[in-house]
């Protein structure tokens, strides 16, 4: 079954872990060709929201709509349209870069696996290291490989959890350029980040979370720093 959508809508979503509330009544929307940034201090609920969008967590209350369907209605077909780059990268360190990509490509039913993987390795700048095991890669190399892994099946919704962590300036610039390409290709991109400089270059919308609540949701480009200063503790990242 093929399934596609052009909008993701979070409707009054809450999530509790036992008695602890991680998210409370969050509602927001993101459409094709938009990059939504989730900002907020540590423990604000950003990664929880990302996991809910990725269908890895079920909301305690509320719903997420992918087009007109919920995750339960769309089933596994929805997962074929989601790409998730977690902070943990989701790569097998004992496998080579090529083996990692080939494994996930086959799992996602990607056609012409070999060519697709070769292209992905080229995009990650890892053609020369394709037969090396991932455990020998730097954080930046693994991050680039993990991004290509998440994009192998051309997902509609791309979820990125702190994708700029540990990258040098050149890698950050390359990743930002890649995300601009994906936005132009009508993907829906949701990024958790603490990097305000990158956020200002990349985001179309910003959602600021604090203590599990959505304290700001704005599509006005240029007010990201203002929202961050207003709602997130003033610290060294706000310079």
């Amino acid at each position: 079954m093929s399934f596609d959508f052009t909008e993701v809508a979070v409707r009054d979503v809450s999530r509790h872990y036992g008695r602890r509330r991680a998210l409370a009544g969050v509602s927001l929307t993101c459409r094709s060709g938009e990059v939504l940034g989730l900002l907020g201090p540590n423990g604000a609920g950003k990664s929880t929201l990302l996991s809910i969008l990725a269908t890895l967590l079920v909301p305690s209350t509320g719903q997420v709509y992918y087009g007109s369907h919920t995750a339960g209605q769309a089933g596994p077909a929805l997962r074929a349209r989601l790409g998730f780059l977690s902070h943990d990268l989701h790569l097998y360190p004992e496998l080579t870069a090529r083996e990692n990509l080939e494994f996930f490509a086959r799992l996602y039913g990607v056609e012409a696996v070999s060519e697709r993987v070769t292209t992905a390795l080229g995009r990650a700048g890892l053609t020369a290291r394709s037969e090396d095991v991932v455990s020998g890669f730097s954080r930046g190399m693994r991050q680039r490989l993990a991004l290509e892994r998440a994009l192998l099946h051309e997902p509609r919704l791309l979820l990125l959890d702190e994708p700029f962590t540990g990258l040098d300036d050149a890698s950050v610039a390359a990743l930002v350029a890649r995300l601009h390409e994906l936005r132009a290709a009508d993907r829906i991109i949701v990024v958790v980040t603490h990097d305000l400089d990158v956020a200002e270059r990349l985001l179309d919308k910003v959602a600021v979370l604090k203590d599990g609540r959505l304290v700001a949701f704005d599509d006005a480009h240029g007010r990201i720093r203002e929202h961050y200063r207003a709602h997130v503790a003033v610290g060294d990242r706000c310079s």
Partner: protein
Amino acid sequence: MFLKVAWLVMRKDLTVEVRSREIVYTTVFFAVACVLVFAFALVKEGRPLEDAAAGIMWISVAFAGTLALGRTFERERHSETLRALMLAPVSRPAIYVGKLLGIVLLLLIVEAVLVPLVGLLFHAPIWNRPLLLIALLVSGTVGFSAVGTLFAAMLVRARSRDVMLPILLYPITIPVIIAGVRGTAALFEAVPAVDLAQMWLALLGFFDVVFVTLSLWTFEPLMTE
């Protein structure tokens, strides 16, 4: 597609193991150490305690199996790759079957070392009915691993997973262990009690069907947080 996914997951697990050889070395070492300790305790002047061989063999398999289960899923926890598997648009029970097959194969390798050692140290007649012994070992291993794979996957994000796994696993797999021990003991008698061994084998087959079916049924809801 179901079998293709199971094959992919199993092949990936075996490739990782061939590269690291971590689980097979540690479990074989652990199982051999276990048998040796029992041999020192129960073999006096070259004469082993009567009927001890079958029990010692299955206890070693169960202990080594618990170690293998823990280590296999520890790998998936390391880079949260189990979450990546759960995100894939494939049948989640197929992922379970792939993990199960990988663990069963690993344990069969351990048993290939363990059984001759038990035969040697405890004078167990392992060549009496080799095919029936293999059938007992395979079906017992499948039953034990079916429950173990489910629990190890469930506990992968739990802080106390190393403690919880045996606490949950052993009480439920006791019927499998008992059937394995009784069936193997029947084969190890001076005149092998083939009918009795076949009866225990049939019971093990029944446990396998029940445990695998229940695990396939419950894997998806248990893995959804």
